[in-house]
């Protein structure tokens, strides 16, 4: 099988699972519904069915897909950026930093919106970017990274940010549900306006990362080589780092911390279609969105009460992380 047909097949299978995921999301939920109800809604408007299908289930599925795509793209970028397959917005600390910013904004009453960003969203972006820059600076040794240093620095900085997040959450004693939301993630309160906030940024980041994918391929050869081959290394690095933080912050601001999506998805995709970054970025977004869609289906249907989605992604992702660590040895 040639590489080209392999990719086409991969794309077709991913799209099929993605669409099936959306259909299943529409048809399953605590209220029993069947395809007949969906067809009935298409024929004549019904306020209850429309609220359940469109405002609750579809908005939630779309948001889960967008967040999954953002996290997976962020992970794919970070893995290329750090030349390290273990990087991921959660592991590197961006997600924890972003959630600290969001919680801080809420605690300080900084809720105003600007350029399509809410106060928490903006602060999430800034603190996520700050944290990943810090981790970057601390783990940089003579122009290269040691895997262990990067991971440990990221985990330590992330834990510190999580501790501060918990501190601010528990200062406000009424907020058990808020704590679970920020620390383990949920799509329970998904609504269309959230999807509309992150969709344009996601599309922009996808376009820019596809456009700069060639430079990311060159970065894999080392910064000096990439520079010698004509890539504006420093600028490219800055843009990618900002995009990874932006994507993670968008995801965190609407759904809390959801770990491991950015780690496992680019891995699967790389195994199936090879390391070229343009295809990797676009496919990671598609597969990441689909993956989170199915995780959310499990989160809301596995038990009578809803599970935080971070529990599901961690259960799927952490063993994979361990496997990668073991293989490296």
């Amino acid at each position: 099988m040639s590489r080209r047909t392999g990719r086409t097949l991969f794309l077709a299978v991913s799209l099929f699972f993605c669409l099936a995921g959306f259909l299943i999301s529409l048809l399953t939920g605590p209220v029993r519904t069947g395809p007949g109800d969906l067809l009935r809604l298409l024929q004549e408007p019904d306020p209850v069915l429309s609220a359940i299908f469109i405002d609750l289930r579809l908005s939630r599925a779309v948001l889960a897909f967008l967040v999954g795509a953002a996290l997976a793209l962020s992970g794919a970028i970070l893995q290329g950026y750090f030349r390290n397959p273990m990087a991921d917005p959660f592991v590197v600390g961006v997600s924890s930093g972003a959630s600290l910013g969001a919680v801080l904004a809420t605690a300080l009453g900084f809720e105003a919106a600007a350029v399509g960003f809410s106060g928490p969203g903006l602060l999430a972006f800034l603190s996520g970017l700050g944290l990943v820059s810090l981790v970057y600076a601390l783990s940089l040794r003579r122009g290269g990274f040691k895997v262990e240093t990067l991971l440990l620095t990221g985990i330590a900085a992330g834990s510190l940010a999580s501790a501060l997040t918990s501190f601010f959450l528990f200062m406000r004693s009424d907020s058990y549900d808020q704590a679970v939301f920020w620390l383990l993630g949920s799509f329970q309160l998904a609504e269309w306006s959230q999807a509309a906030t992150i969709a344009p940024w996601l599309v922009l980041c996808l376009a820019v990362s596809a456009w700069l994918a060639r430079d990311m391929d060159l970065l894999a050869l080392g910064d000096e080589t990439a520079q010698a081959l004509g890539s504006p290394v420093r600028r490219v690095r800055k843009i990618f780092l900002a995009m990874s933080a932006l994507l993670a912050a968008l995801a965190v601001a609407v759904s809390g911390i959801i770990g491991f999506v950015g780690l496992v998805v680019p891995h699967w995709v790389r195994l199936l279609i090879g390391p070229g970054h343009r295809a990797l970025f676009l496919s990671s977004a598609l597969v990441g969105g689909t993956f989170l869609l199915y995780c959310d289906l499990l989160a809301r249907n596995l038990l009578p009460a809803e599970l935080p989605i971070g529990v599901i992604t961690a259960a799927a992702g952490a063993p994979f992380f361990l496997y990668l660590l073991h293989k490296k040895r």
Partner: protein
Amino acid sequence: MRRRSFLVAALLFAAPFGAPQTISDDLGTPCPLPARTPERIVSMAPNVTEILFALGLNGRVAGVTRFCDWPPEARALPKIGGLVDPNIEIMRSLDPDLVIAFRGNPLRLVERARKLGLPVFVLDIGEGLDALVPLIERVGRITRTEARAAELARGLRGRLEAVDAARRGILSRPKVFVLLYGQGLWTCGGASYVNDLIARAGGINIAAAMPKKWVLYKRERIIKDDPDIVIILARSAADFSAGRDRFTKLAGMGSVKAVRTGRIYELDENAASRFGPRLIDVLERMASLLHPEPAGGRK
């Protein structure tokens, strides 16, 4: 002068045709006051369910939480989930014309339900026992059962006054330690309405100085405070006797007066933990436990 008479005339004419009346909920959100009693009410808290049933709205409650087990017929109603995790989809599917939320329901969820077009009315008036009757009257107002609520309120106020009258005749105020059945010595602090119940029944809560609702009390402090009476909040008789045995066998408890005199009593945790009409039953029982002597003609 002329202006004022114009205003009066305008009001007189406007009133019958004007916009429907609105009533603010306890978060300050204006809600239209229903023209008549809502038909499909969703209750988001067990005490709200109890109040709705006490107001005779039995047939009009469309959904309750999984904790709503009183009165027993509430158990058969559709469940919307728990207190902190009600399911919006189920709530929407019940197509309610009134949703009553209580403190403890997450605010973000209340807001989400509102955005979905659900008519949510949030109740969050004071913590003290004095807030109970106004709370019931408020539920009566929003469900347009004002007459029934006024009658219920009159009855409850009368019983409160009877307890107050009996208290004035007492000779001493026993020291009380309330124990919540379970792990550890959890008791009610000064911010809890259980503290109010004790004071109103003519006792002194030894943990009244703690500025919280529920606090973990230290064993030495119980020994030092030496309560005359221990009241165990338990779900069942079995829990009560297990709790009593565990408490009396704790090292050092033998010296405590309540243990020596055997004044350890049971109180229904289920009724005492719901901020609803049954709280007055709990108060009367507490008063009779604290002052068994027939003072002021109490039964």
